[in-house]
């Protein structure tokens, strides 16, 4: 029964949501609306689960003195400070200490972490981007046209050329036609895959989300 009841829940909820899409009757839509609110509550709990797991992992790391356990203390300590300011007794609003920490610590940390990629992509472009085949040449040519066409420099360099072959025009043509066509094909293929997988899950054919244990 430990697997049958969840499979039944999946089936019933899945069918009900499909019915809601096709049947505009008031009774169906009212119930579905309430069901969607339930969904947000359960998803919130699943995110809390993830945060709780993070705490557990770092706790174990400290207890077993694994490599880098000192940094785990930093992680848990700052979590405790944030939670002290923004927990059930606190506030998350603008002007609060919680908000100050988010804007002046999380924002710069996250922004800077991802901005490192600019350096690595430039380094990778020099070291790894090679003309090894005809297809790679096509990729390279498209990349160079788009990189120069999407910045004002491209417009400036080709400003005296005929409009049809100026870099920004070529870039837009690449984006609106071959790029659009390729991504449309990918979208349609992926949509088929998602629909098939969704049906398999609702019908109980695909059960991997339940885990391996009985």
């Amino acid at each position, binding site marked *: 029964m430990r697997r049958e009841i969840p499979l039944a829940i999946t089936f019933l909820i899945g069918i009900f949501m499909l019915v809601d899409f096709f049947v505009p009757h008031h009774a169906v839509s009212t119930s579905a609306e309430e069901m969607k609110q339930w969904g947000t509550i359960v998803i919130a709990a699943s995110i809390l689960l993830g945060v709780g797991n993070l705490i557990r992992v770092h706790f174990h790391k400290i207890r077993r003195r694994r490599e880098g356990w000192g940094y785990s203390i930093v992680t848990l300590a700052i979590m405790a400070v944030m939670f002290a300011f923004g927990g059930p007794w606190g506030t998350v609003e603008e002007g609060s200490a919680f*908000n100050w920490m988010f804007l002046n610590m999380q924002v710069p940390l996250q922004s800077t972490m991802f901005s490192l990629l600019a350096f690595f992509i430039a380094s990778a472009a*020099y070291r790894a981007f090679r003309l090894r085949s005809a297809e790679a040449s096509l990729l390279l040519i498209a990349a160079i046209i788009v*990189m120069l066409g999407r*910045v004002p420099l491209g417009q400036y360099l080709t400003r005296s050329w005929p409009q049809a072959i100026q870099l920004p025009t070529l870039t837009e043509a690449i984006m609106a036609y071959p790029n659009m066509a390729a991504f449309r094909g990918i979208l349609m293929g992926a949509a088929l895959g998602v629909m098939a997988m969704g049906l398999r899950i609702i019908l109980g054919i695909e059960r991997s989300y339940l885990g391996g244990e009985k």
Partner: protein
Amino acid sequence: MAKKRFDIRSVDRRIIFTLIFVAVAWPLIQPMRLPIDVSPPVQTLYDAIEEIPPGSIVMLGGDYSPDTMPELQPMVETFIRHAFENDLRVVVACLWPASPPLVERALTPLAEEYGKEYGTDFVNLGYMAGGIVTLLGMGASIPNTFPTDYGFGAADIPSRPVGEIPLMQEVENFDDIAFVMEVSAGTPGTREWIQQIQGRYRVNIGSGTTAVGAPNFYPYVSSGQLTGLLGGLKGAAEYETLVGFPGDATKGMDAQSIVHALVVVFILLGNVVYLISLRRNRGAEE
């Protein structure tokens, strides 16, 4: 001992990093002010918002995080400015937890500049967990999906039930929304808005996305599911140009130009070196 020859194939990557650093910093200190051309998807978005009657309610979907702020924050600021310029009322709803304070950062100076009042001219509904389930809930009832708002710190207005907010008396679902501007950095974002809301409720959706995601959305622009697309910092700069208030995106385009040119040089140089060494190796084998 023979002197080690400089091998361009194995340049220390820290030299490349330094060149990139200089290529970004220098144009910010000494701007070139290159003119910015406007692409059709941005023009389409701008024109669509211009056609909305004054007094209408528009929605801003803030679905981004601090790491994408440089690209998306200018879009949010420019959209809010555009809306306030045209006397449109703005409802903000976020599916990403980091978005509410970032959108508030954009709202605060613009509300003061245009004399707009929180609760009457604009409202920030804050964040709600759930992704596409939240979107579907909004399709049925926005007040039920966002029972309280985020508040507005600049005016010391705390979070309260949406039933107490004058603007929200006029908003039940997407029938009351003239246009949705979805600013998105990933999932849930533009794709989910199109899949769950645009087709079902026939509301016009325009999108601002990161440059990484923009190529994926051209099929939606072509099919008409998206009414306009701002792609990356350039898209934001084009939108600023159309609205007439150059901001951070416009200022960043010079640096963008120089770095792109530098990366193209790196790619070409790397391939020239590669082709020369291929030829040498073939010669050595023969």
